[in-house]
């Protein structure tokens, strides 16, 4: 099935936005005291969130993890509120309670983000169960990493989802590393997608740096789920171009490995195609880039100018 031009442009836009967003954070978090906590980015992996979310409708739900910015921006979260939350400001989407790690944006159906590795999986099962229970025409996407695929929660969640044929996509973003451990150091199975077979569920391997392939795989899996065909495990093969977090010196990642993958960057891969096939002009591409830049600049200004929460606000929001 063809991918509509409009979708391609949308995906290019969310990838550009995500990239600008991350790049600015790389710089910002170097400035002592500007951004508290860890800084975990998905530079180079933007095709995953952008491709998947382009295949979703607003009523579809995503549950995401510590490496969430690209997923959330692609799902339509407000960059200002995200940035303010990353700055731990009162105007952030979670009033500064979350910071960068647990950004929850229920307005765009991204209601739960967890930094417990593997935590997204059972929650996504529950969220998809609710969709099935209510006979909604909507699905849930669960993002997680290759490392998370070795948590017990992965196993229990996939088994239950397959058993009950829940409308969920388990989207494994295999970026070759879990912390400092390379893929071969955390499992012997060659493709994580193969694990789908252990639950009687289809498993799909996708080039995670090809946003169109990601989109197509997500669209197909979504369609199957809506038709009652149950869950799909999609493994997007990609690469963590930066460290686990921004303080990670990446001493264990071979330089040429990083370089090779940087050359597979998903953004020029799509933009070159769109420009060379004259879907957009180079000027339009430039325009898209500067719009993304402007959005990020505005978001940073908003975040910087926003106040921190008052200390006693810490006491709020524990209970309903």
């Amino acid at each position, binding site marked *: 099935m063809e991918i509509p031009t409009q979708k391609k442009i949308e995906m290019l836009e969310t990838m550009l936005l995500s990239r600008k967003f991350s790049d600015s954070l790389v710089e910002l978090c170097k400035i002592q005291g500007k951004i508290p906590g860890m800084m975990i980015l998905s530079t180079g992996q933007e095709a995953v969130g952008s491709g998947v979310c382009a295949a979703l409708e607003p009523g579809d*739900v995503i*549950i995401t993890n510590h490496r969430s910015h690209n997923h959330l921006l692609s799902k339509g979260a407000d960059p200002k509120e995200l940035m303010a939350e990353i700055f731990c400001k009162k105007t*952030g*989407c*979670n*009033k*500064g*309670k*979350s910071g960068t790690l*647990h950004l*929850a944006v*229920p307005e765009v159906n991204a*209601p*739960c*983000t*967890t930094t*417990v590795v593997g*935590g997204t*999986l*059972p*929650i*996504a*099962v*529950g*969220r*998809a*169960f*609710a*969709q099935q*229970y*209510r006979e909604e025409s909507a699905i*849930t996407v669960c993002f997680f990493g290759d490392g998370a695929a070795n948590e*017990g*929660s992965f196993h*229990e*969640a996939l*088994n*239950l989802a397959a*058993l*009950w044929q829940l409308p969920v996509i388990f989207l494994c973003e295999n970026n070759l590393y879990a912390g400092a451990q390379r893929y071969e150091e955390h499992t012997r199975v060659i493709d994580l997608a193969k694990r789908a077979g252990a639950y009687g569920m289809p498993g799909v391997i996708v080039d995670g740096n090809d946003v169109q392939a990601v989109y197509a795989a997500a669209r197909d899996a979504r369609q199957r789920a809506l038709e009652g065909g149950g869950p799909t495990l999609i493994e997007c093969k990609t690469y963590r171009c930066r460290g686990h977090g921004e303080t990670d010196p990446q001493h264990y990642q071979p330089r040429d490995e990083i370089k090779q993958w940087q050359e597979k960057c998903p953004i020029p891969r799509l933009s070159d195609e769109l420009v060379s096939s004259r879907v957009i002009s180079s000027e339009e591409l430039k325009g898209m880039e500067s719009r993304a830049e402007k959005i990020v600049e505005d978001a940073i200004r908003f975040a910087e100018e926003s106040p921190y929460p008052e200390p006693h606000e810490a006491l*709020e*929001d*524990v*209970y*309903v």
Partner: protein
Amino acid sequence: MQKLGMGQAVNQALREEMHRDPNVFIAGEGVGVSIHVNPMFPTTGLLEEFGPGRVKDTPVSEAAIAGLAVGAAEAGLRPVVEIMFNPFFTLASDMIVNHAAKLRYLSGGKSSFPLVVRIKSGAGFGAGCQHSHNLEAWAAHCPGLKVVMPSTSADAKGMLKSAIRDDNPVIFIEHMGLYFAPMPVPEEEYLTPLGKADIKRQGSDLTVVTWSGMLGPAMSAAQKLSQEGIEAEIVDLRTLTPLDKETILSSVKKTGRLIVMHEATRTGGFAGEIAAVVMEEGFSYLKAPLRRVTGPDIPVPASPPLERFYIPGEEDLIKAAKEIV
């Protein structure tokens, strides 16, 4: 008035709430088809009444069961999931403690998790410590959770209904020993509020704060003590968090003496919390040292004489009372 065991009372509460609200569903290992065909058990007959769409038997997967509740609750359903025995709370604890209890806070109040986790607990059935391990103190140490531990069938029914309607995650712990003790339960619809202790017996000489399976021995000890002229006030805590400090403190104000009785092991048990609250806020009321009547600091053993040794009883409370009155 009807007389029900606690399992039957729970069953009635589930049935009523499922009739009232289509968003309520139950899930767990054997909540539908069970190895127990026993009308005294909490989920007997619900599958037949509500069908497999709302009574969900699950694989043996405690993390997934708890995650099911977290995700479904966020969507606005009202899951009531079962953890078969209290020690298996460990396997569900990441989902409950790091997710159900925290995700609302982390969202800045945007998401909420109206779920109930029912847990079967209590020693006394000879199965040993991997089945019998009272861990209410764990849940009570986690802000974001409410922890309910009823001692009577009537409270179990009214509090479970309240728990299901509560918009927060509630840990609802049932003592299996109480499943088989018929007690009066009102026939009409009622709700029992969470967070309110209940004075099950008035007394002037000492306050006994207790909950769950220990209410029975506490009440019978009180009766015996009364024959010797010691009047114990029995405060049935019912809810551990939010803690009803007021009731505890005003009782201790009256009696000047405090005993806390629970089945869980002593060190780190919830008796400590109650002691601390009274020592902080009711120090001037106190006329005598605290006594804790609890399980000893050992895992629950299987052999009957050993298990009986473990479970605190009437005699232990009487002895403790006499030490301080």
